[in-house]
């Protein structure tokens, strides 16, 4: 069953065409990678799915419901959560507090002026649990803004996960990371995919990561879809090779 269905969406900025007539269907439990040269429209495409932008034309269906024009917060409530290319966290709050906020929102407490002792304890346990899963136990009380790039990124991913998403969108999760950090994040993503059967769509530049993780790959170039298929098919595709070689 397909969880997310993008039906020939386009997005124009004035005369500039960022995304043109792109379609995509993502199955439950699938890990889909979106790749393409710089300026291919990958991030715009992501923004259309997450509601940061609305498409000029086309339709987006999630879990059988048309979400094309929903506000971002409403998409989150329906189970889409995302990370950003430049990590977006709460820098002057601790890791624990960052996660706590996400957990409370997921529990439906965002307007609550107080919590019972039991609710409070449950939130703490869940936040600590996420902290451990993200390998952040040793920095739990530090301010996120003071952490390494990798730990900030891990915090962001764990916040997105705290929302119990049905679909996780990761925009270049390993961008700007060293080898060790890339390895850690990749392992985390694979765990989520394998163990929790989470549906994930990710944009990624590092081809090792993409071919290691993805079930299927979609290639964008100049706002259009160039190819789509399994990693093996994409590796063998001549047009994809041309696009990448042509760019280099």
């Amino acid at each position, binding site marked *: 069953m397909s969880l997310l269905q993008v039906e020939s969406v386009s997005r124009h900025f004035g005369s500039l065409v960022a995304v043109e007539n792109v379609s995509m269907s993502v199955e439950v439990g699938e890990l889909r990678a979106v790749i393409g040269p710089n300026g291919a429209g990958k991030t715009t495409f992501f923004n259309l799915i997450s509601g940061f932008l609305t498409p000029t034309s086309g339709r987006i269906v999630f879990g059988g419901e048309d979400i094309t024009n929903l506000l971002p917060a409403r998409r989150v409530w329906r189970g889409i959560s995302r990370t950003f290319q430049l990590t977006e966290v709460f820098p002057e709050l601790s890791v624990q*507090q960052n996660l706590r906020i996400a957990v409370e929102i997921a529990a439906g407490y965002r307007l609550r002026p107080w919590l019972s002792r039991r609710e409070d304890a449950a939130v703490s346990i869940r936040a600590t649990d996420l902290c451990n899963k993200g390998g952040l136990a040793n920095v739990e009380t530090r301010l996120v803004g003071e952490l390494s790039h990798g730990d900030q990124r891990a915090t962001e991913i764990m916040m997105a996960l705290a929302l119990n998403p049905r679909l996780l969108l990761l925009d270049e999760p390993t961008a700007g990371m060293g080898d060790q950090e890339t390895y850690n994040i990749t392992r985390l993503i694979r765990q989520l995919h394998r163990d929790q059967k989470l549906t994930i769509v990710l944009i990624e530049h590092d081809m090792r990561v993409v071919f290691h993780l993805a079930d299927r790959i979609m290639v964008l170039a100049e706002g259009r879809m160039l190819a789509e298929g399994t990693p093996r098919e994409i590796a063998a595709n001549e047009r994809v090779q041309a696009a990448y070689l042509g760019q280099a």
Partner: protein
Amino acid sequence: MEMSPKRGANILIWAVLLTMPYWINWIGGYTSLGSRVMVLALAAMSLNFLLGFTGVLSFGHAAYFGLGVYGMGLTIKYLVPSTVAGTAVGVVAGAAAAAVIGLLIVRLRGIYFAMATIAFGQVFYFIAYRWNTVTGGDDGLSGWHRQPIDLGFAAWDILGSDRAFYYWVLVCFAGATGIMAALLHSPFGRTLLAIRENERRARFLGIPVDRHIWLSWMISCFFVSLAGTLYALLNNFADPHDLRWDQSGDFVIMAVLGGMRAFWGPLIGAAIFVVLQDYVSSQTQNWMSFIGLFFVLVVVFFPRGVLGILHRPSSR
């Protein structure tokens, strides 16, 4: 864990506020000055709920403060001679105006939000200024005074005794700051911190940001109009300047001076500001220049405020 420094500071602050009328004369002050500090501190702390803990800059809070002032004055003068009724009218007037204006401006951000709050703030000033027959216009609303509070078994004579009035202010101050502190430590309060820290992240965690900013704005304006009602009682007078943009600026500078990331920061700022103003205006004609210079110096040399310098931006 024994007693945390934070808990110690709280106990110290409440001890000082509770006993102030009994020693303020010894250090050269007077009880009304203490009341004034607390009233303006409440206003600045209410503003800071929005400014320091939601990250939204309002430069027009005097409007809602002033509605509290006039709500109190007009009620006692024309409707019922009751302090409690005046408080209710003032607070409802402030909150109602804030609700409508909040809806209009909640989609603006940053400096544009600030500019819209400044501009909207002026409406009420012009109304108070122009509607001579009711508000007394530029001369202000006089010819009324605060009324003793009937507790059923006894009357609380806040008119006859400055000290009694001080404790009425303290009761309101404690209630308002207690509620604000509790809110900031709740899940709702944390969504506001989230918006301050990173609006984009907040939105993509599923927080309807505009709605939460509106709520924070309402809470802030509600308590600032409560401070306004107290200010009216303090002076037994309603002055159109209480509604004007310079008054808004005073609230902001108090919050910044004390430290806007600290809950008690604006209290410290208000204390310094009020005492300084009291002293300077008795010494010179050119107090405007001094206040202006004071603003400049604070911004240039002291942007993080007194409490901001004492402790790093920790996790509160």
